[in-house]
Every structure is written in structure tokens, then in C-alpha cells.
């Protein structure tokens, strides 16, 4: 077998393992003010969710009191939470439970 033209940089793998990506979540909480149609629209237009997915999430917020609407790196989740606050939705950021 011939040797590969380039050998992988093993150090990079080690670096990735040293800094695992911890998932964070954006949670939207129920409130008595925001209209159901509005919440669906915000989820659909901001996150790009389908009408069905956005409706599911809205119903989860309404019936269960809250729903996880996004998961990912902390910085990204904070940006999403700010956008939710702009829309008047009550959103919090938390580390995903292990």
C-alpha cells in the first residue's frame, strides 16, 4: 500500500475533544398576553420552521407551559433569545440537561 499523500493532523482531533460543544437551549415560556397566531408566526418566520412544527411548539408552550425551541452553542442561543425578546416572547437560555 502506498503512503497517503497527506497525513491527518492528529493534534486537531485532540483539540476538538478538549473543547466539546456543550449544547444549550432556548426555552419559550407561556404567558397570558401573546396571541397563539402570533407565536406560531414568530416561530415560523424567525426559525424557519414549517407551519406544522411552529404550531406544535406553540401548543407545547400553551399546554405544557414551555417548549424548547432551539438547541445549539450558547452564543447562538443568546442571539435567538434576544430575538424572542424583541418579539415580546418570554425566552430563557439554559444548558441542555445531560
Amino acid at each position, binding site marked *: 500500500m502506498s503512503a497517503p499523500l497527506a497525513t491527518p493532523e492528529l493534534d486537531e482531533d485532540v483539540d476538538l475533544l478538549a473543547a466539546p460543544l456543550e449544547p444549550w437551549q432556548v426555552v419559550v415560556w407561556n404567558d397570558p398576553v401573546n396571541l397563539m397566531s*402570533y407565536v406560531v408566526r414568530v416561530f415560523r418566520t424567525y426559525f424557519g420552521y414549517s407551519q406544522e412544527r411552529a404550531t406544535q411548539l406553540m401548543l407545547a408552550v400553551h399546554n405544557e407551559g414551555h417548549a424548547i425551541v432551539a438547541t445549539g452553542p450558547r452564543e447562538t442561543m443568546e442571539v435567538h*433569545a*434576544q430575538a424572542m425578546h*424583541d418579539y415580546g416572547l418570554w425566552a430563557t437560555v439554559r444548558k441542555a440537561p445531560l
Partner: protein
Amino acid sequence: MSARPVRMRIAPVERLQLRRLVQDLCKLIGPGIDPEDPAVARLTPNPYPDDSDAARDFRSGTRGDLLARRAADAGIVSAAVAGVADEPDSWAEETALVEEVLEIPAAEVDAWMRTLTAIRLVIATRLGIVDEEDHDPDDARFGVYDWLGYRLEMLIQAAEDQSG
């Protein structure tokens, strides 16, 4: 999303009402803002209720920006409802109540929705609304609150119809 404007039918008396409400909102979040005011707190929620250090860091970094975006949104609505005579007493009743078409550019629809929502959140805080059943027919502020909800619902429907 379509780039077509959204059409809203609104009477002069409603435009005047809306203009005053937006002015109140701008005053609330403008210079002299009281961060302890529950309505202000509701407009700038704490994303880290269980972590006061993270909450402080987040708020100090983002609160001003959020309020600036709110003010910009309110300015868009304010400009759209400006130009209404400020003396409703001088209006003939038929003029004050006849609906006119207000065209909202597609790019400004979200600013409208966010602003109507913000005003509803402020009124709800003042009224102490904690669940959907809270209502007092003798309190005129509930009338304003319901009217804003109706306006928002109509706007959402019109926007959905436009985007097909």
C-alpha cells in the same frame, strides 16, 4: 415572503389612539427609564433566571440594544400614524370613524407586530393580567388591550394572506 405591502383598514380615531399609545411606549423606554418598573422588566426579560451572574452579563451587554430596537420599531409605527389631527373634538363623527386603508410595507410588518405586542405587554402588566381569563368590563384599559389584540390578529392574518 412576498414583498407586497400589507393593507390595514383603520379609522382616524384609531390612528390617534395608536399614536398616543406609541408615544407612551416611547416615553416608558426612553431617557429616564425605570428598570424597576415591572412593565420595563417584562419588555426586557431575564434569560438566566437561575444564574444572576450570567443574567447581569447578558443584560449589561444587550439591554441597551434591545431597547434601541424597540424604539426603532415604535418609530416606524409612529411615522405611519402621524399626520392625524390631534383634535378629535373638531372631527365630524362620520370622518373620525370611517376606515381608511393604511399600507404597511412588507419590511415594516414585523416592527408593527412587535410594537403592538409591546404595548399589550405593558397594559397587561399594569392591569395585572396573569391568565387569559382576567377581564374587567368596567375598566376601559381592557377595551384598549382587546382592541390592540384584534388589530394584531388582523395584521397577522393580512400578512399570512399576502405571503400565501
